[in-house]
């Protein structure tokens, strides 16, 4: 619980749970309590992109699981063909896709499971795993060459 609070505070927008008045411990919650996912009106959410939504402090979108990761996927725009395989199979909704284009990875929610790398069809892969602290330029410089088909 304490950890989650700290993580949530470090999250985007700095929406600290501390500022939320009336938040009680999980063992003090009374029956029938509702944790709203959004501030205010939540109709038509299906037609809003995540950047247009007013997430409440209770939505796990405002939390992060980045600390789970040992390796992170790095995205190479030059090779990507926007097939969206990574988008449909990402278990953590961490592939940022807008207007049929793959934009990058949401490192707040990515757990580093490597599924996106595995399903990437390009040669060489446009997503590869690197150590968590590898810089983007460094990773792109190490990118492998195109593999020739074995005859």
């Amino acid at each position, binding site marked *: 619980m304490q950890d989650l609070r700290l993580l949530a505070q470090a999250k985007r927008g700095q929406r600290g749970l501390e500022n939320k008045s009336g938040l009680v411990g999980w063992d003090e919650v009374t029956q029938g309590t509702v944790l709203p996912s959004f501030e205010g009106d939540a109709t038509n959410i299906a037609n809003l992109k995540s950047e247009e939504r007013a997430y409440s402090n209770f939505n796990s979108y405002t939390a992060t699981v980045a600390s789970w990761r040992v390796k992170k996927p790095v995205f190479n725009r030059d090779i990507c063909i*926007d097939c969206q395989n990574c988008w449909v199979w990402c278990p953590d909704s961490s592939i940022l896709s807008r207007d049929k284009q793959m934009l990058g990875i949401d490192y707040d929610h990515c757990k580093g499971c490597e*599924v996106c790398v595995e399903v990437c069809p390009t040669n060489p892969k446009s997503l590869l795993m690197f150590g968590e602290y590898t810089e983007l330029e460094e990773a792109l410089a190490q990118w492998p060459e195109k593999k020739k088909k074995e005859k």
Partner: protein
Amino acid sequence: MAITSIKNLKEFSTTNDRFEGAHTLCPGCAHSMIVRELMNCTDDNLVIATNTGCLEVSTAVYPFTSWDTSWIHIGFENAATAAAGAEAMFKARKKKGTLKDNNASTKFVAFGGDGSTYDIGFQWLSGAIERGHDFTYICLDNENYANTGGQRSSATPIGATTSTAQAGSHSYGKKEKKKDLVAIMAAHGAPYVAQLAPNKWKIMAKGFQKALETEGPCFINTVSPCCTEWKFDPKDTIGLADLATDSLMFPVYEIIDGHELNILYRPKNIITVEEYMAAQGRYKHLFKPEYRHIIDEVQKQVNKNWEMLQRREEARI
């Protein structure tokens, strides 16, 4: 009915996620792939009930919720009942005209793991389907009680080792066959029953849309490879689902109105059950000479089942 058009994956990728990240499911868990896909394939309001299980405990870690829709959890067994009750109330209020928006299209969905669907919630599910509520029940079948440490359930296939049916010098793991829940649900006369897999995303999305569109109780069994309990590398989740569908351990098919069976995916190259088992740690012991006969037995069962499905599809009865 506002259904997202899904001609291809690019088009599907323009839909907005309603299942948020930072839930605490294991990395590479197929549960969230399935749930995300269901919530992305429609624009309708969703009311979701979830049984206790991996999905419930990891998406509702206080004070966070990963659901952008109405979501309810009551007990281990009664997601079907909760969804059915909400649906009955919705219908009654719609009739009276006391809803906030009487024209809004709202769909009711229940999620359960295989433990809460095949075993614990079976009676509740059966009751809700029999009463004919307009809802869709989706079973996330990972073939064990993964949330509590991998105990056997009646969905565990023969020969798999689990923490309560362990393989060793005197045992080859679970000794009983897997229950055929899809056939049981079809026997209830449910208008739409299907078995789907996340690796065939298009077939799965279409199946979900069909189930949401169909009036009446629908049941969908989805294979959800569990990297923790099946013992494989998290990155191979989709590969494992591929092996499961291609080896026909999980044939992908639908049954309409309890009799009209359609096979939705026919593998071009059918692989052996042995290949599927070799990819997972839970079947490791079957490759010892004394237990090898189990693999042959499973292969025979799978062949028989596939033959049965094909004949039923041809017969159209």
